[in-house]
């Protein structure tokens, strides 16, 4: 009984063997298995089933796989090269013969170390550059955010098409409505950006914080690893104040004390209970705050029209971003009808969180860089193809002999391709190592305000990419030479392989020169416009003098400065104290510091226009400035007067505007004395200041409206200080001036204005450096490639040149012939390259500041440069050609 069952199992195990083998021997093997069981009983008095099955499985595993895939096995030693025998007859020992091919390839490469090193080095450069950039692209665009099912997470942004505002902050109550009135989302959470003053410790400190709806962490799917999450009860209007801390803050300020849970800290003077600590390394969506506090009060009661929140939502199962977008747009339309006074013109958009955080420019920059390194790799492959071709021609005799001895075309093709694969694998490994260094360099240059959800470790995706690139590269550079050499037949042997590759080989070399020149043009033009753009930025007139400016922020808390007059008074006092410091030439305060990355926008109408007509509203950047701000920044006054201390909440409302607003709305250039309707109130324009860059260097300057800061209702201001000396030396003096005034008032965001400028141009500098680097590599590869092909071509044509000279051609004519050939090809390549470059720079146009995508200087310069390189690359071989002695050349025959 037991034996029958065993035989049934054995029949199943036979499936491991190839079908043909089973058909032929299956029945007999069952027979043998039966005798084996008999033997077993005879030898041991019983059947040792465990031993039998283990041995049987081992036996089937070893011999089954060997018969199927021709590897391993006990009889490897057998027969006259058993592997080769099987490979040629049945093609079974694929692995064995592959190993042999790889060994052969390695031996062949070791015989030509200079060739191998050049090829491997070129490939490592190309693959390394590609892996580095891909590592960044992977971190930005491909790798999942560290949240639960990140694909389902989206942002809901406000947008106002009439005013051209996209991805604007959303009112809390609108976000609540979108969650309640559509079925597109599982849940909608909302946060706003806050900062708190932590008091009650040794010194007052600013904490970066986020106010969140209590469901924020459940929407993200990440929870505090100590203590508890927020609950709905924490969001009740009169709930006691609670907070969840970041792991970093808990470690640094509270010494990682588990006893901190349940204790009280003072945030802006309010006693707040610590209820939880987020896990180490948890990145919040847009930054790395120290503390989260829940919104208190029902979202439905929040003020409409207050666009100051960010909405995060999790899509319901099966709902696409498009469907959510349609649903949200419908609700937004309904809200416009229900609340015309606040919602007129406002609609909403749903965007995947990852794309939204990266921004359009970031994604575009990543893709442009990826294409640029793609071109670098293509050039590297062209160069290696060129090398291989030259080498293949040197091996014509070897190949012909192998072909004559019966090696099939497929076999020879495979052997040559395996040599390419060996080269590119070594190049790939070295390139991967290079990329570890390269990624580090690039990451250090990335904008420091990049959201923390983006990380750049090498992961499986990057390694798979490197492997794939290596294989594709091997095919790219290896296929043409492989096909060409496999075409050789025994007939090559007739003339001892002297006849050379002929016209077809030279045509292929010519094609490589054309391709390489074209690629070099694209990279040089791309790099050129990028570098020009950054050079332009460095010379760009910002509209102010950043060099001697120091900036810092203060935010008087509610505990000590209850109402607006108290806040205004402390700010006035502060500016006055700082102005009195001897080293200080001037000081002023502003709500939003230029190039700090934030931005306030609003709209106005001209006096006499209907403010309720949305089409008549004009968009503008709004800011609040103190007396002395423009003077301190060095922003020129064009007309009228400055803001003074008298322009406070009780005085008639006045504003200062910039030149762009004047030229756009007051055709006669006279703005002073005219009036604008802002928030339903008439404001008189009392002054005009020069245009200056505010949000970023890439955004064109917008109409600007500057209100007196004494009418400002917020608490936080940035103080700008101009010094006659080193701005950094001023910092301790500034700190003590503030402490002297109020020992509990922290200052934060202390930095020279130059840092803001550097940060604004940093990403462009990085792009320009990378593109410039790629352009230089391409120039080098192009020069080597052109020289290599021309020089090789001349070598091949020595006989022909000898004949020509014997027939009376002058050396000059021979030189001319060689140079003409090279220049014709280069010209063709430059033509193709310029056409391609037009398309590429057009795609880059959003990354360019102050330079046209078709900048004639760059296009002209690159053309001239490559013509010069092509001329040199052809002239040197031409010199060699004209030095040929006809007698020697002909006697080689």
């Amino acid at each position, binding site marked *: 009984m037991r034996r029958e069952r065993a035989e049934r199992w054995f029949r199943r195990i036979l499936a491991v*063997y190839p079908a043909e*083998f089973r058909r*032929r*021997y299956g*029945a*007999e*093997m069952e*027979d*043998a*298995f*039966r*005798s*084996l069981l008999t*033997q077993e009983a005879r*030898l041991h008095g019983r059947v040792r089933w465990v031993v039998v099955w283990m*041995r*049987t499985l081992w*036996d*089937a595993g*070893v*011999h*089954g796989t*060997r*018969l199927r895939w021709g590897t391993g*096995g*006990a*009889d490897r*030693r*057998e*027969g*006259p090269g*058993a592997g080769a*025998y*099987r490979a040629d*007859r049945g093609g079974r020992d694929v692995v064995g013969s592959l190993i042999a091919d790889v060994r052969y390839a390695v031996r062949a490469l070791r015989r030509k170390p200079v060739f191998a090193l050049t090829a491997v080095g070129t490939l490592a450069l190309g693959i390394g550059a590609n892996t580095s950039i891909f590592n960044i692209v992977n971190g930005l665009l491909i790798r999942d955010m560290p949240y639960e099912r990140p694909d389902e997470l989206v942002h809901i942004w406000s947008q106002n098409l009439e005013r051209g505002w996209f991805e604007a902050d959303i009112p809390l109550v609108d976000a609540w409505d979108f969650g309640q009135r559509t079925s597109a989302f599982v849940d909608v959470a909302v946060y706003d950006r806050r900062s708190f003053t932590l008091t009650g410790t040794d010194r007052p400190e600013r904490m970066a914080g986020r106010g969140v709806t209590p469901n924020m962490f459940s929407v993200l799917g990440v929870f505090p690893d100590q203590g508890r999450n927020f609950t709905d009860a924490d969001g009740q209007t009169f709930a006691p104040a609670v907070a969840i801390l970041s792991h970093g803050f808990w470690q640094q300020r509270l010494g990682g004390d588990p006893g901190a849970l349940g204790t009280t800290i003072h945030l802006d003077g309010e006693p707040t209970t610590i209820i939880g600590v987020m896990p180490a390394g948890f990145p919040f969506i847009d930054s790395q705050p120290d503390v989260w506090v829940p919104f208190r009060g029902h979202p439905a009661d929040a003020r409409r029209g207050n666009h100051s929140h960010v909405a995060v939502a999790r899509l319901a199962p099966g709902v696409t971003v498009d469907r959510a977008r349609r649903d949200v747009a419908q609700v937004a339309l309904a809200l416009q009808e229900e609340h015309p006074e606040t919602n007129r013109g406002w609609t909403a958009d749903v965007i995947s969180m990852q794309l939204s955080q990266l921004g359009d420019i970031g994604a575009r920059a990543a893709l442009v860089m990826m294409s640029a390194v793609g071109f670098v790799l293509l050039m590297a492959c062209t160069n290696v193809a060129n090398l291989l071709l030259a080498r293949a021609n040197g091996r014509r005799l070897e190949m012909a002999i192998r072909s004559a001895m019966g090696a099939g075309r497929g076999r020879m093709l495979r052997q040559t391709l395996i040599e390419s694969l060996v080269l590119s694998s070594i190049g790939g490994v070295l390139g991967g190592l290079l990329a570890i260094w390269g990624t580090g360099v690039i990451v250090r240059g990335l904008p420091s305000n990049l959201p923390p959800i983006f990380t750049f470790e090498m992961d499986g995706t990057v390694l798979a990419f490197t492997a794939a690139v290596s294989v594709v590269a091997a095919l790219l550079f290896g296929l043409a030479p492989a096909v060409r050499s496999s075409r050789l037949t025994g007939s090559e042997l007739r003339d001892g392989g002297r006849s050379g590759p002929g016209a077809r080989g030279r045509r292929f070399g010519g094609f490589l020169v054309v391709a390489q020149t074209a690629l070099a043009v694209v990279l040089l033009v791309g790099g050129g416009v990028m570098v020009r753009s950054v050079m332009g930025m460095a010379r760009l007139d910002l509209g102010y003098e950043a060099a001697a400016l120091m900036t810092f922020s203060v935010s008087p808390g509610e505990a000590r400065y209850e109402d607006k007059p108290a806040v205004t008074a402390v700010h006035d006092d502060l500016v006055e104290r700082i102005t009195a410091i001897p080293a200080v030439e001037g000081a002023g305060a502003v709500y939003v510091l230029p190039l700090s990355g934030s931005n306030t926008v609003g709209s106005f109408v001209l006096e006499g226009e209907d403010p309720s007509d949305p089409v008549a509203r004009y968009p503008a950047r709004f800011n609040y400035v103190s007396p002395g701000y423009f003077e301190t920044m060095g922003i020129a006054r064009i007309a009228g007067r400055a803001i003074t201390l008298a322009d406070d909440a009780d005085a008639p409302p006045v504003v200062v505007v910039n030149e762009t607003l004047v030229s756009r709305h007051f055709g006669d250039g006279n703005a002073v004395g005219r009036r604008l309707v802002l928030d339903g109130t008439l404001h008189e324009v009392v002054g005009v200041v020069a245009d200056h860059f505010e949000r970023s260097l890439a955004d064109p300057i917008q109409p600007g409206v500057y209100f007196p800061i004494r009418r400002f209702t917020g608490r936080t201001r940035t103080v700008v200080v101009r010094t006659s000396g080193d701005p950094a030396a001023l910092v301790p003096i500034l700190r003590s001036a503030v402490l002297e005034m109020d020992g509990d008032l922290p200052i934060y965001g202390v930095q020279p204005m130059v840092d803001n400028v550097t940060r604004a141009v940093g990403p462009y500098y990085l792009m320009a450096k990378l593109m410039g680097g790629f352009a230089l590599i391409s120039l080098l590869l192009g020069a080597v490639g052109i020289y290599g092909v021309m020089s090789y071509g001349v070598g091949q044509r020595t006989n022909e040149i000898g004949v020509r000279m014997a027939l009376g051609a002058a050396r000059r004519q021979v030189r001319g012939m060689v140079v003409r050939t090279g220049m014709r090809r280069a010209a063709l390549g430059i033509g193709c390259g310029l056409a391609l470059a037009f398309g590429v720079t057009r795609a880059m146009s959003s990354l360019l500041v102050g330079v046209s995508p078709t900048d004639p200087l760059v296009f002209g310069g690159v053309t001239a440069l490559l013509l010069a390189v092509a001329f040199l690359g052809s002239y040197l071989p031409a010199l060699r050609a004209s030095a040929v002695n006809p007698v020697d050349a002909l006697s080689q025959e």
Partner: protein
Amino acid sequence: MTSHTRSLSSKWFQILLALAERDLYGSAIMDEVLLRTDGEMRLWPGALYSALKDMTDNRLIVETEPPEGAPTEGGKRRFYSITPAGRDRLASEVERMASLVRIARARNVGPEREAV
């Protein structure tokens, strides 16, 4: 000749040895080898039949008609016979082993009871 200077695997050697005396079928070879090696070498079905296949492919053995009156299990059992090439290969292997034994003896290694 070059191929004959390489040693034969012990499995192939034992199978050739078993077939040198008479034609046999698979499980009979298995029994014969087990008996001859005092239970030291057991050929498991996969090892046995893949060896038989490779040796047939290498023309060291051939399939043959069953001898008169042999148990064929209704024609299921295939009999194998050693080829002249197989015999050559076996002989050279024996010669190789013998020369190894001679070398060993000359160095006073191994059993001393008989001289070759």
